[in-house]
């Protein structure tokens, strides 16, 4: 187990969300989209621009700035 931020992961890696340390509104929106602590996500694409993750097989794009604030373990 090691803790990173979502933005550091490479395409194809799986992880579990630990903690989100963004602003309240952004955190709440992430939670409501299903990206809450404990959620299992897979990074689909991380090159330039937002990071695309797959959550239960559905894709969500998360801005890079926000992805820096999502702590994950993988």
């Amino acid at each position: 187990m090691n803790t990173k931020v979502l933005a550091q992961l490479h395409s194809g890696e799986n992880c579990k969300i630990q903690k989100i340390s963004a602003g309240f509104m952004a955190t709440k929106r992430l939670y409501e989209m299903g990206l809450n602590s404990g959620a299992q996500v897979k990074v689909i694409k991380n090159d330039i621009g937002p990071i695309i993750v797959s959550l239960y097989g559905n894709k969500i794009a998360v801005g890079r700035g926000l992805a820096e604030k999502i702590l994950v373990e993988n």
Partner: protein
Amino acid sequence: MNTIALVGNPNCGKTTLFNALTGSNQRVGNWPGVTVEKKEGSFKFKNQEYTVIDLPGTYSLGSFSEDEIVARNYIVNENPDVVINVVDATNIERNLYLTTQLLEMGAKVVVALNMIDEAEAKHIEIDIKKLSEKLGAPVIPTVASRKKGIENLISKAVELINKDVDYKAHISYGQNIDREIENIKKFLENKRLNYSPKWLAVKVLEGDKDILNMIKEKDEQTYNSLESIIKNDGFENRELEIVDKRYEFIHSITSAAVKKPKENVVTLTDKIDRIITHKYFGLPIFALIMYIVFQLTFAIGQDLLGGIIGTGLEILGEKIDSLLVSINAADWVISFVIDGIFGGVGTVVEFVPLILVLYTLMGLLEDSGYMARAAYVMDNLMRRLGLQGKSFISMIIGFGCNVPGVMSTRTLDSNKDRMIAILINPFMSCGARIPIYLVFISAFFPDKGGLVLFLLYALGIFVALVMAKIFSKTLFKGEASYFIMELPPYRIPTAENVLRNMWDNVSEFLKRAGTIIFAVVTILWILAMLPIGVEPYSQESILGQIGTVIAPIFKPAGYGTWQAAVGLFSGIAAKEAVVAILGMVYAGVEEGAELVKAIQSAFTPLSAVSFMVMTLLYTPCAATLGVIKKETNSYKWTLFSAVYSFAIAWILSVLTYQVGRLIGLS
């Protein structure tokens, strides 16, 4: 009549289901006080008529956005007889989040488990009986796009209307929070607050501002005691824990009722996305698609259909003119009908095809799922300019008309992104400005039309981006901006949805043409006729005098004539009026060769360019200002928008003219 409300996440097929339920019995309006679109329809079942209300698509029923508040207030205050909750079967975990909230509110819910065919194709097995059992609400599988399961859904919904049921999802929020909920509940009971106390208690703990304000207004004492309970309970992230627990509840349901394949199959969507969202190809593909959209819009909408309608209107105008003459109508009647109505509203109607084609194409892109990808590929670039990917979509829509452009900024979550997107939208050259450019182009640059148009559009985008950067560094400095967006699977758009959406927009435009623009044209015509006895549209008319007063402002820009000033003045009312007014004041005609000739003698190529720069950038039209007021809910920002864009337009127009003169153009 019984009412049924439709609720669901964005992209769950709710609109398609609404269409399947109601067919052509639909009305589109606005929710009172807000700009959220309200769709209403009806259907008949066993000789009974039922009203269906399509609530805005939301992920949650908090007070996060206007959409959520509208949806929530409707369910709470209007008490629909049944709520149909549309759930995307391929994305069941996330969609059930909204379901749990509905159940908690005590609403009578039927779940329409939509796109069940897609779920099957993805090998997702859903045990419908178990799901319904666990949720405590009936679940009906549907495929709205193929009208499957609709009968079942209707009969279930109708059955529920007459049944007394008490669904409550019994979500445990953990010992501590549960205890606190009970505690708060006691405070709220017997306070005649109109809502279920349990639901209110949860909302209070979630820190829901809208609900807290409501309690404060109704009963300040209760509010104060609640506040002190919350302050002293020692929780830190109560709100988030509540969300977590809801998901825990959902997982307990899905783990029993839903089986998903271990490894996700690589879908067609994945394959398409590899190309469309590619690091290097993404942007060029987007540019190409936009290029095609605009080419088609102008080729089909303007040149082909617009031409036909224009000719038709001309013939009709002539027919009516000779008819009026033959019945000896008074001169002022003829002038009003021909100059006023045909000149003003007619030019607007010529745009309908353009808008029709643009919205059809945009609807195709939206429904296919491409728009979300466009926002994704643009995000990186836009971020450097102080914007975000989704802002670009509102800019593109602004090319059609700034009114829907400004309205579409609602998809932006953060205040900063939204305000900036609203303030720069009017720099996107809308369809109504095109005829102005076309007149000047045919007067001075007949063989460089495409280039001039391209440069004007580019200038608009450039100014918008520069201003966005400046705003994000000054007025909205430090405010948070973030990007979260679902990338729905690609789907083949249904003709019904696309055409309906297009028609909603076009009829909105026509309504505007019939009301605001008609009123504007009438007022301008009256101003041009008064005082009685003057030559209509002359310098002595009120309109001419207004022009004379403001003309000196435009002298440094090279067109300080009262006629040009009158044209610009009328453009603040509606950009569509500019060409018609210029035509009347310069040549006594609305358009055509005589106007072009008049423009050639009144302007130089340089002052023509300077005038086009001005029309591109200056104060948005009244309708746009109106919608800016609605969306920002602030006269201050509306005034700011009107004034700063005028200032920028003036500066750039003057700069164009003066620099042009210096380097010897003119």
